[in-house]
């Protein structure tokens, strides 16, 4: 037996709770990346081996840092309730996500997985790649929802907010990754 | 109505599920593991024996005395790193005490080798090879042929590497050698 409209009563967590509690999944995902990043020094030693594709890594990092602009823009527009305008930023961030996935796969060619550094590099960047897949799909979902059912998008604006927060978190993770794997 | 649609999906996926399982297993047995129950080509019975950790596929063969047999042994160890394996036919185990008086002793070889005095054809040469067995590195295969000698009865093939640990882990199979057909 199915009943309509019980959602709001069964799920009464306020937007503040839904957005605040998203810190915990991000914390967990961040600790995973911290574990990988520390593993880099255990398996890869202190130096950066020759042949690592520094140029691609630096370009990807610059892209990520620049994406803070559209991210902050999306955040502001969501806060002001301009959902339609925010979707443009979402589209841009989704494209950046796809570029990042392609870039990560491209860098794998430079480091053989069977070496100490290569193994931990591939594992860590591959794991970040999974996050990028997740956030890209989340942007796609938000865009489709915003286009198809704008009213529901507005009623559940915390979802879009969390997706944007997740992107900001990805900027942090990627920057740490770049420092640990290319500079340290 | 909803229930009817659900039933349809379940029935369709049930059929698809059965098809995929059947197809995959059949592919496994006929294409990936072409073991054949003794395909006869020009009067030679050809068998492929695949070595895994720690078992053989197939694990049971039946030969007749006087048959010409061609065996291909292939090491398909599925571990990382993959392991070398051995193929030796014989009966009665050579055992070594492992320190536990009541436990299964370590088996390290055969007392009687099936190929004693049997001429073996491999690499273009035909001659008896003393204490013949096949040891392969991962991915290698080795083909040899011979005529089944007049030694009817139950024989076993096994791998004794790592002081018999492979044998203990179940890496052995059985060959029934029957009297010559029509005899």
């Amino acid at each position: 037996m199915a009943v309509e409209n019980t959602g709001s009563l069964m799920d009464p967590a306020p937007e503040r709770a839904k957005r605040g509690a998203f810190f915990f999944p991000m914390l967990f995902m961040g600790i995973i990346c911290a574990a990988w990043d520390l593993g880099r020094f255990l398996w890869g030693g202190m130096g950066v081996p020759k042949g690592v594709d520094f140029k691609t890594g630096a370009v990807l990092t610059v892209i990520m840092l620049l994406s803070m602009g559209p991210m902050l823009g999306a955040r502001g527009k969501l806060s002001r309730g301009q959902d339609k305008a925010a979707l443009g930023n979402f589209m841009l961030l989704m494209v950046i996500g796809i570029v990042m996935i392609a870039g990560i796969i491209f860098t794998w060619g430079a480091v053989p997985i069977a070496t100490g550094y290569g193994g931990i590099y591939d594992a860590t960047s591959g794991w970040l790649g999974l996050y990028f897949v997740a956030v890209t799909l989340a942007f796609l979902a938000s865009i489709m929802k915003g286009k198809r059912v704008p009213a529901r998008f507005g009623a559940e604006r915390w979802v879009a907010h969390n997706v944007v927060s997740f992107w900001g978190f990805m900027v942090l993770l990627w920057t740490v990754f770049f420092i640990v794997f290319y500079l340290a | 109505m909803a229930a009817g649609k659900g039933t349809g999906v379940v029935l369709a996926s049930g059929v698809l599920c059965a098809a995929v399982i059947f197809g995959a297993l059949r592919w496994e047995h006929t294409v990936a593991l072409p073991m054949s129950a003794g395909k006869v080509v020009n009067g030679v019975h050809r068998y492929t024996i695949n070595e895994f950790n720690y078992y053989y596929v197939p694990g049971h063969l039946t030969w007749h005395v006087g048959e010409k047999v061609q065996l291909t042994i292939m090491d398909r160890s599925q571990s990382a790193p993959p392991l070398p394996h051995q193929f030796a036919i014989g009966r009665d185990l050579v055992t070594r005490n492992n320190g536990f008086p009541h436990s299964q002793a370590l088996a390290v070889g055969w007392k009687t080798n099936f190929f004693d005095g049997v001429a073996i054809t491999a690499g273009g040469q035909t001659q008896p090879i003393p204490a013949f067995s096949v040891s392969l590195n991962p991915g290698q295969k080795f083909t040899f042929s011979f005529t089944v000698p007049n030694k009817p009865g139950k024989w076993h093939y096994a791998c004794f590497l790592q002081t018999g640990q492979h044998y203990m882990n179940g890496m052995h199979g059985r060959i029934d050698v029957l009297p010559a057909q029509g005899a």
Partner: protein
Amino acid sequence: MATTDVQGRAAGGAGGGGQPFVWSMVLPMVRAGLFGFIGYFAAAWITAMVTHTVIVNPLPATLGYVFGLLGWLAGSGIWSGWIRRAFGGEEAPSLTGVERYFQFSSDPKATAVRYVIFNVAAFLFAGLAAMAIRIELLTPNSTSWWLSEVHYNMTFGIHGVVMLLAVAASVIVGGMGYYLLPIMLGARTVIYPRLLGLSWWLLPPAAVAVFLSPLIGGFQTGWWGYPPLAQNSGSGIVFYTLGAATLLASSVLGALNIIGTIVYMRAKGMSLGRVPMFVWGLFAAATILIVEAPATFTGTLMDLSDMILGSHFYTGPTGIPLAYDDQFWWLFHPEVYVFALPAFALWLEILPAAAQRPLFARNWAIAGLLGVSMVGAMLGVHHYFTAVSAERMPIFMTITETVSIPTGFVFLAALGTLWGGRLKLSSPVLLSLMAMMNFLIGGLTGIFNADVPADFQLHNTYWVVAHFHYTILGAVIFSWLAGLYWWFPKVTGRMVNEFWAKFHAWWFFVFFNMTFFPMFILGIEGMNRRVAVYLPYLHPLNEFVSISAFFLGAGFLIPAANLYFSWRSGKKASQNPWGSKSLEWHSPSPTPYIVFPEGSEVTVVGPNDNYADGAPEPFVWAPTTAGK
């Protein structure tokens, strides 16, 4: 709105709508299973064809598992219940009737009930594996008529993984915690109900994969999966690493909900000092999972990567096998506190109500729970003192022995509550006391394991097996049963048959101790764990242990039958049969779909375990203020 309409029906029917069960409601689960098998075999087949291998090889098995899991999830109702609406598609109506138990549902109560059913099934199969182990150990020789050594290894590996990650990790946190967490906090649901729903659907494929691992070669490593043995055992190790990772992910999804709900969804007036003890126990367990699980989760994946991708984390030229031990025990030692802390908290929830006395030293008990979770976070090294440098030994010995102090707070709080009280000895109370007794033995013997010189003698003997089973089977599983009996009327509206509950409580207590106490002696006398073959002088004691174990195992049929028949035809329960002051008993039994009716809200004015004479009622209901 239609909600008042729901209210009217929800209050009447058992757990929701009044529509009776029909078999077609099970179809989504059948569909999920079929999609899972299709995903597995199709992906494994295609991978094997592309890479010219056989489908039992690690790579096809891995991809098969991943797509099997995705297929299972796709068939479970997640598509219509979650994904489709997330992409702006049609919104499926909420499920409020019996059908929510058989497909993806965002109702935490349905999820929790499914957890209980799953745990019982997993416990049955893993318990049968334990019986197989004890049959093998009836004789010191290897047996030709039962398990070979290699099958014996697979059997105890499966027993270990399933019992720990599919039973102990979720019996109390999952089956009881997810049901009670929102209700005890005065909320109608958890913070991310769909994530919580997803957490259950990750369990069955993982457990099934571990059980079926012998079909692709099994694994020889026990539940540790240590390299390089892992890489050299059968392909079944792939199912072990993937199954462990999936089960961990499921635990973490629950932990995220626990913490988020506690932080953000407490009822008005529920300050941290008034949060129920059981919820504190869940909180302590959840923090362990979130902070510690990543190291172990990555460890299982890196172990797998060594097998299928050709990396050398633990094997080969750059491999560091000890790194796996560090990562593995980083969580899997604290994991036992994930099992045990909710059990402790459960005693502290049951005993004050049964004794009708206020919980003694409440704040110390909370400090004890949190202290165990914090101190327990950094001592996994004591599992391999035999493999580490001398510098690490005194550090981890000291930290390990320090854990007994916060544990002592919890014990003293429980004893102080009982002191001088008039205890009503119902079956849940009896089981809780037995659990405390067993845990006392388990805890005291743990000190010997923590002590480096003693540990060098006891390492990897049956002493460790006995210690471990005293804490997990003796304490956690006993507490699980206590909780099942205590909250059975809440979930089903009926009472458990008290005679049979007490009968089997004693049955368990006697045969549990007869099974596991002799194992301490076996360990001291030199019986190694994980052996199918042992020296003959250990035979008589092993025979005694095996026979006791058969009685213990058979005894589990009693509660299974008791719970089933009580659910079908037990005595109708009143709303609050135990005289508890806790918030969950404020709603009717069985709990309606919407726990707390719309239009009134609760204000918390005190802790729920203050049973002192003249203490005020801790929960005050008032009509919802206008405009809310």
